[in-house]
């Protein structure tokens, strides 16, 4: 019942590298810290020192264990993959056709025409939670304490904030990531750094078949390649062929 604006040329969003994310939750905590003092605060917590603490997080990290797989021969040959841990940071994907907006009965949930950011106007929100039911990505965060729906704002109060040095006009999660696994930019511009990164690394949208056209992209973990040393000791051993540059090159590429 809330209309979407005409599709914007500019599509601001995040590109998250699952190959280099180490699951440290710095993005989640940094997000909570910035947004506590920003336009979307307070980011509330219940039972903070009790048995079952819970709270509002615009960004959450889920960790999964990947089972080891055997080597695969053929044209798309892959090496045997060891058991791995995959860390998956989850936040609003700022969809191009977000169901959370069209389902909103009051107009509180809206998509910005100029850059595609999906926001909640808390003064119009009645806390009916229809948007959290509609979002298939679980990106909405209801604050029982405040009685309103909250969500990732893509740090709209940072990215245009002229009180911040230009280099800091990025979402807090991007700024704080110690492995630089998070990138921010205009995914509507095929020439932008983030678009080129997505093209180069085969970035994917989450559940595109649902038709909400998420803007954020995830870069898949790089599989271990055929012929690559399959244990750490041989990579750490002294170089034998190709010299130290080749040896270090292998280490860096891992």
């Amino acid at each position, binding site marked *: 019942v809330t209309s979407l604006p005409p599709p914007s040329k500019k599509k601001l969003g995040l590109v998250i590298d699952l190959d280099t994310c180490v*699951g440290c939750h710095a993005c989640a905590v940094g997000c909570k810290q910035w*947004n506590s*003092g920003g336009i979307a605060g307070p980011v509330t917590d219940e039972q903070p020192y*009790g048995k079952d603490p819970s709270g509002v997080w615009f960004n959450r990290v889920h960790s999964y264990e990947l089972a080891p797989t055997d080597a695969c021969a053929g044209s798309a040959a892959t090496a045997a993959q060891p058991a791995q841990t995959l860390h998956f940071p989850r936040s609003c994907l700022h969809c191009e056709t977000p169901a959370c907006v069209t389902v909103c009965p009051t107009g509180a949930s809206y998509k910005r025409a100029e850059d595609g950011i999906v926001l909640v106007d808390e003064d119009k929100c009645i806390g009916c939670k229809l948007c959290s039911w509609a979002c298939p990505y679980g990106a909405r965060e209801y604050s029982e304490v405040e009685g309103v729906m909250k969500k990732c704002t893509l740090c709209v109060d940072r990215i245009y904030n002229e009180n911040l040095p230009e280099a800091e006009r990025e979402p807090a999660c991007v700024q704080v990531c110690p492995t630089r696994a998070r990138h921010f930019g205009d995914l509507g511009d095929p020439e932008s750094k983030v678009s080129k990164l997505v093209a180069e690394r085969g970035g994917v949208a989450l559940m595109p078949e649902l038709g909400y056209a998420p803007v954020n992209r995830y870069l898949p973990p790089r599989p271990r390649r055929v012929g690559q040393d399959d244990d750490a000791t041989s990579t750490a051993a002294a170089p034998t062929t190709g010299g130290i540059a080749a040896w270090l090159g292998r280490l860096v590429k891992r």
Partner: protein
Amino acid sequence: MANRDYLRWAQGFGFVGSDAPIVLQLYSETLQKFRLAAQGHGAVKPPEAHRERVATYFDPLPIWYEPFEHAQIASVAHADPEAIRGEPVEPRAVDGESVHPSTGSGRTEPQAVEDAFPLSAITQRPMFMYHAWGSQNAWLRQIATRNWLYLHPDTGTKYGIADEDWIDVTSHHGTITVQAKYASNMQPDTVWSWNAIGKRRGAWKLAKDAPEGTQGFLLNHLISDVTPKRDSANADPVTGQAAWFDLRVRIAKTAHAGESAPQFAPLPYGEADERPLRYGVQFRNRNHRSKAES
């Protein structure tokens, strides 16, 4: 300058802070001085009781030897069956004075001596714990309120332990009760956990039923401050660094499921305010009003 091209390249890449030559001392004259003193040279000599240890381990060249706890466990297990059952023992410090009693409960039956302690047990920090180093707050508690003992599923199968079973972990020093969790991405002969999440009840004014106190645990209770033979500090002989990673354990399903052990009387600090936290509400526009307040 030795290795100049590499150093310049590495400095450009940010691997090293400067391209100054890196000198690795393979032969350590400092260690050799200690060894010579222990062998009787010079005016200053190590105390008699430590001379053999200094002469053996202060080798000027890199050497490898089996960690003391690994090497000594079998002989101790033979000589002192009480010790491998984890019965309360009075470990003696190097100087012969009595130190703290063991936390061992003696619940586990003895096994064949050769596989009395078949696993290494180590502590590490998961990435998210780096945020919690020396601190605790309501946000970090929502990432983790308790720890687990991680083990490879094959190790679980071998010892009859299912994912999330409660188990007794026994070292030559004592027994603790913890909850196990499967993790395929680790060595089958090693179990690990992280310390610092486990808390004595009442610590940091957490609720009495907070998981930090009921399910969290410290591996430290298994680590003796002296070696199994009680002939020296359980520490690296050169640096004095505590030998936490030398710990050897065995694991078995426990009858005491549901709570970690040992447990101690709660600290008398009272409990923190349990009202919701609303950090930042004061920064909101004056016209904004929480629905909860209206």
